[in-house]
């Protein structure tokens, strides 16, 4: 019994294959993510990192394979999953302000026809405070810098109050100070027992920021604790031997 409880996985991906017009972008991926880890997905451009996140969220239809979140398919577990899309995936000239975007994180729990009210506003303000953006609540979103946009998306995911977070390049276009703030926030989430999966680009920070890693290049090269799997050998396999700056 206890054994079984220990084996519950936050995310379980089995034999996942995704293809765009017959060209495989993900091939036969297996991935087990235990609860309470901070996992980096790394790999070269076109390795399928974003696609993997999207497949877990059901945003792209896999050609084969299965994804489970805490032992159930994603549609049954939406409420416990938070999502931070790539900053560049939306038009930031959309006519709305910061607070409004953050409150969108509550739409899922609000359900049809109900408009966000005082409770949602409060949750959103709390989340904005956590990312250091409370002063920007009324700001039009087109006036935000890249790092501020990223933090707004993070705050929107925070108000989802999820157990599992999937984030697509949350450090993209962010300055050093913001990056440290975001890392602190992610580690705080992990400390609370949440599972955080992050598509990550900078190999040099993987060991500092994350405790788990997945090396991906269409196929899964390796996944597991950083100290075991983040090896020069695995990296060479993932990047095809062009990781000169890695001096381990």
């Amino acid at each position: 019994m206890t054994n079984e409880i220990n084996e519950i996985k936050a995310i379980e991906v089995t034999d996942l294959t995704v293809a765009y017009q017959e060209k495989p972008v993900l091939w036969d991926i297996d991935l087990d993510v235990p609860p309470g880890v901070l996992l980096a997905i790394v790999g070269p451009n076109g390795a399928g990192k974003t696609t993997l996140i999207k497949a877990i969220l059901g945003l792209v239809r896999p050609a084969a394979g299965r994804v489970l979140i805490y032992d159930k398919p994603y549609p049954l577990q939406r409420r416990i999953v938070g999502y931070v899309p790539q900053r560049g995936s939306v038009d930031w000239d959309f006519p709305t302000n910061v607070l409004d975007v953050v409150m969108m994180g509550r739409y899922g729990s609000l359900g049809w026809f109900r408009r966000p009210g005082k409770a949602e506003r409060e949750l959103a303000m709390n989340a904005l405070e956590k990312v250091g953006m409370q002063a920007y609540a009324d700001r039009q979103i087109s006036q935000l810098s890249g790092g501020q946009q990223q933090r707004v998306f993070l705050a929107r995911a925070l108000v989802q109050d999820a157990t599992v977070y999937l984030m697509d390049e949350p450090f993209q276009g962010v300055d050093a100070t913001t990056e440290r703030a975001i890392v602190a926030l992610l580690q705080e989430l992990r400390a609370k027992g949440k599972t955080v999966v992050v598509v990550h680009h900078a190999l040099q920070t993987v060991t500092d920021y994350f405790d788990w890693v997945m090396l991906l290049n269409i196929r899964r090269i390796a996944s597991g604790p950083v100290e075991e799997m983040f090896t020069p050998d695995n990296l060479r396999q993932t990047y095809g031997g062009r990781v000169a700056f890695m001096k381990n």
Partner: protein
Amino acid sequence: MHTLNYTLIVVGIGSALLGIISGALGTYAVLRRQSLLGDAISHAALPGIALAFLLTGSKTPLILVFGAAMAGWVGTLLILSIVKLTRIKYDSALGLVLSTFFGFGLVLHTLIQRNGNANQAGLDTFLFGQAASLLERDVLTIGILGGIALLIMSLFWKELKLLVFDEGFATSIGLPVRALDILLTSLLTVAIVLGLQAVGAVLMSAMLVAPAVAARQWTDRLGHMVLIAALFGAIAGVSGTVLSSSASRLPTGPTIVLCATLFVGFSFALAPNRGLVWHWVRHRRDKEHLKLAASRSVKEIWKRKELTRLQSTPTDKYISKK
């Protein structure tokens, strides 16, 4: 005199309603970058009107609007399936469907006119629009159908907003994105086919786009943008109708569209924050400030250099002497 006033009032109300509906729903088309889809739907609706008339022999607005909506809907569906099933890109698919349907519509119209059916008079208003031909029953149809469309829009307000802003996130929280997309396109189709009689197929898309583009210049909130676009649409509709009915033989559709375009020009020039005049003033001011700051800092640097020179020279001499 009395009858003239009455006609003008009916036509004015009709055009105002049309402006409100197309302005409000056009906001979504503009924000989703689907302005051209509106153009395709309005052109594709033309054969629907002709077919509805040919099949029923009736000019009841509800029947014609239904025919137009069906054809517009089929056109949209065709565009989407062409994109999905072939390697033809979206814009080419739009052009293809738009011109084919429009051409087919023109052929049908010519056929109807050749037949010399006494009842056919008035069908060609759907090409360039003639608001003056709006009757009480037309206005009633516009009011009821448009009202329903706006009601649905406000019911699904937050869902549609999220769909337009961030479709991926909307999908991830479980919104039926496909269905909402169809809903929004259907509402757009309703706005278009309602406007066909008054504004015409050729220029209807301008009624969707112009008020929304103008409204965007004045506000940074979606709710306000919808309201302002509706207001601009209404004013453009009424002023266009009045102008075209007071000057002899001015076609209504183009006049309404010109009025709406005036709003766009006015907004681009004068709106706060986004307007050109505002930009120019701010640019000038910033430049002045920069110049001032630059000249100040240059002076400051000179002063400091001078100071350090004055301070350092004797010391250096002193040191070197030692």
